[in-house]
């Protein structure tokens, strides 16, 4: 026996020694031989916990850039007359200074900004930054594994993401600007280099970056699925897994099945751009010149794109749902209400996400009879979503809820998910979509339901697992300021957009309707939205300051399990080495949600079932 703790001091240590699974793991006190110096420990690490932190910090970097972009175009939308010459040191020639010395945002660059904002937030922040961070951190810890199935491929997954980021970042500095045809990259704007400035080198780099991102998502997803299915510790059957594991598992399945389809779409796009094929192009006139590209269909690209694109929004929201379920149950000190209903609704959402993609294309010229099919399935998604919302509310109901930054964000998630979900029922109807498509109503809908809601899930996860990641706590006061400010601010930004959208103000316009008589009365509302966006932006800066300050100087974690949680990650040492448990791996005896049972506040998963105790994990 390599490690026998001579005198077990706690119940947990006793149980891990007596019942734990001994896989003859040899701990190396200074990390293993591959992680002995700074470079291998922090940079080229194969430890899932370090890779999780790499994903998180890279995600924060991209979130800052993406949010800063939104502030620049919000300035243009809220204050189209304002002098932006003070941005010239940052944006250079993208600020056009007229004879009177007034600086204006270049309209072409405005489109680049909205395109990059979408791409960065959807893929780099809410996919890699959210699922990448928490799947990596929690899957091995919560299922009871030493690391991922393949730690090396896991590291490659991060490095492919990093390279994707490098390529995208470099494209921001092209003299023709980054891609500017919208984050969905529809042809012909994306297929013809001569279509716009950003369609040349900017689009090429966008495709290269996205291809690398697909590689990253696949390597990550393959690892997550294999680890959840193959490396669960003794006793951890599927029905004993915390809901985080179910959510990350289904997320990974969605990613593995849908990202290759995006890759196919981009591959054909690449051939259209570079080698003269006509998969997506037909009868195009550019600058008065007729192209000889015939026989293609731009709708084909939309099908391929949205076959990824729709599961992608669940790739974003499912991890947040899993995190919220876990955080909420821990801080409510109550079992999650309707555990199995939660699992089945995750599975149902995952399945339905594959058969609703054309609801993004009601106005693209798809057959209206086919639209009916997609309307029905889109509306059916409301059922599992409502089940989940009901279960979250009933989990809080009658509980002795601990209000802290993590749990407040989990409640905020539910609020956002309801508000944004309801407008989804509007947009899911193809008839109403005729009026609402491509208006600010759509912007309001998806920002609330998958942007803000997913961010709230992410924040809940960061505040909750920060001690596990860095051994310290984040500042609670700043956290609460962050929560209340962001909750009110996010509604202030997006609530008014429902009204402008219903009135028909189109999205993606450089000049948000100010030059149209019909929309001129929204000028003040647009100013209000921009001011709210700036306030919320600075609240996120406050969060970033809190995050980095707390890594080095936050309140130290003094016990292994500060929240009194049941799951296995809180049985690892405060300074968790590579391999997670110094001796035996704990075995699992019960499900993850025995809170407030038999007069005990919480019963961790490694505690054996008592006599006459009902096993929730073995139906």
């Amino acid at each position: 026996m390599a490690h026998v703790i001579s005198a077990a001091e706690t119940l947990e240590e006793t149980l891990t020694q007596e019942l734990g699974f001994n896989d003859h793991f040899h701990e190396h006190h200074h990390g293993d031989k591959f992680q002995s110096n700074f470079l291998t420990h922090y940079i080229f690490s194969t430890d899932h916990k370090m890779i999780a932190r790499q994903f998180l910090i890279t995600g924060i970097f991209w979130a800052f850039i993406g949010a800063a972009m939104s502030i620049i175009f919000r300035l243009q939308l809220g204050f189209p007359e304002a002098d932006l010459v003070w941005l010239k040191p940052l944006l250079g020639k993208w600020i056009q200074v007229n004879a009177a010395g007034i600086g204006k945002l270049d309209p072409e660059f405005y489109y680049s900004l909205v395109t990059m904002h979408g791409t960065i937030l959807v893929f780099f922040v809410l996919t890699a930054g959210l699922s990448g961070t928490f799947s990596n951190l929690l899957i091995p810890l919560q299922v009871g594994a030493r690391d991922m199935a393949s730690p090396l491929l896991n590291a490659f997954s991060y490095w492919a993401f990093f390279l994707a980021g490098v390529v995208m970042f470099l494209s921001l500095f092209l003299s023709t600007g980054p891609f500017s045809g919208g984050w969905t990259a529809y042809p012909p704007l994306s297929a013809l280099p001569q279509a716009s400035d950003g369609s040349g080198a900017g689009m090429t780099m966008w495709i290269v970056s996205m291809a690398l991102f697909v590689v990253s998502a696949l390597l990550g997803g393959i690892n997550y699925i294999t680890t959840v299915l193959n490396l669960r510790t003794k006793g951890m059957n599927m029905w004993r897994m915390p809901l985080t594991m179910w959510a990350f598992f289904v997320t990974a399945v969605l990613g593995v099945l849908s990202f290759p389809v995006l890759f196919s779409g981009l591959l054909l796009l690449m051939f259209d751009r570079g080698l003269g094929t006509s998969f997506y192009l037909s009868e195009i006139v550019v600058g008065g010149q007729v192209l000889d590209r015939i026989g293609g269909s731009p709708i084909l690209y939309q099908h391929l794109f949205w076959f990824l694109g729709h599961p992608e929004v669940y790739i974003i929201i499912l991890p947040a749902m899993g995190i919220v379920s876990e955080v909420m149950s821990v801080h409510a000190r109550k079992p999650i209400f309707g555990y199995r209903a939660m699992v089945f609704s995750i599975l149902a959402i995952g399945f339905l996400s594959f058969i609703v993609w054309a609801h993004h294309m009601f106005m693209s010229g798809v057959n209206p009879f086919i639209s009916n099919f997609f309307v029905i399935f889109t509306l059916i998604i409301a059922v599992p979503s409502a089940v989940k919302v009901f279960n979250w509310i009933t989990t809080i109901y009658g509980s002795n809820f601990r209000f802290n930054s993590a749990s407040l964000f989990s409640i905020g998630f539910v609020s956002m998910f309801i508000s944004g979900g309801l407008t989804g029922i509007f947009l899911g109807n193809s008839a109403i979509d005729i009026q609402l498509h491509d208006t600010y109503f759509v912007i309001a809908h998806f920002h609330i339901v998958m942007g803000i809601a997913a961010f709230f899930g992410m924040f809940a996860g960061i505040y909750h697992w920060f001690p596990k990641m860095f051994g310290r706590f984040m500042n609670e006061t700043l956290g609460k300021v962050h929560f209340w400010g962001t909750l009110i601010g996010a509604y202030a930004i997006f609530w008014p957009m429902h009204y402008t959208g219903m009135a028909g103000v189109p999205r993606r316009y450089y000049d948000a309707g100010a030059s149209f008589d019909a929309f001129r009365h929204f000028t003040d509302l647009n100013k209000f939205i921009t001011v709210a966006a700036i306030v919320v932006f600075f609240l996120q800066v406050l969060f970033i300051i809190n995050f980095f300050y707390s890594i080095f100087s936050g309140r130290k974690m003094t016990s292994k399990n500060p929240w009194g949680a049941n799951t296995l990650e809180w049985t690892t040492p405060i300074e968790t080495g590579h391999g997670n448990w110094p001796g035996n791996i704990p075995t699992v005896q019960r499900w993850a949600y025995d809170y407030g049972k038999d007069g005990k506040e919480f019963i961790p998963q490694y505690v054996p079932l008592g006599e006459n105790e009902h096993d929730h994990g073995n139906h």
Partner: protein
Amino acid sequence: MAAITPQYSRSNINSQKFALWVAIAAMIMMFGSLTSAYVVRRAAGNWFEFKLPDLFFINTVVILLSSVTIQLSYRAFKQGKEQQYKGLLIATFVLGMAFVIMQYMGWEALNAIGATFTINPSSSFIYVISGLHAAHVLGGMLGLTVALVHAYYLPFKATIRRQQRFELVVQYWHFVDVLWVYLIFFFTIQS
């Protein structure tokens, strides 16, 4: 890495093999989406018809044969027949290379009858899908190269670890084989 490999593994299937199955599922989705795009695009009309080159059908036999040789090589490995194992492995590699070269000749034959890469999506799809498949065969040959290095530079020992590594190559090679059979079947019934 080496220091963290031991852990509780709950199923009979090796986790690397399982991970390869998941990766194969991803590849199936990629080829499935391309053949679906082919069907959708074909239904929209303006579609040039042409005959597939005979080489594609001959090649189907070549790649099926390579699946047989790799399976026999694997059996010889387990039975400890070193010479047979090495010889059949080389035969598989040669057949794989022949497949890729003959696919290239097939594309040249297509080009010669006027079904060029850019003339119509009907031919573009053939080049892209079979080209992507050939890229996957090349990936498999990379795996075969590793297996050959193992066979010729390591002393022959049928350990469980080496058997598992070999199984990964065999599994992937059968996949690219079955994939081609699906594709040639698909192209035949479509055109």
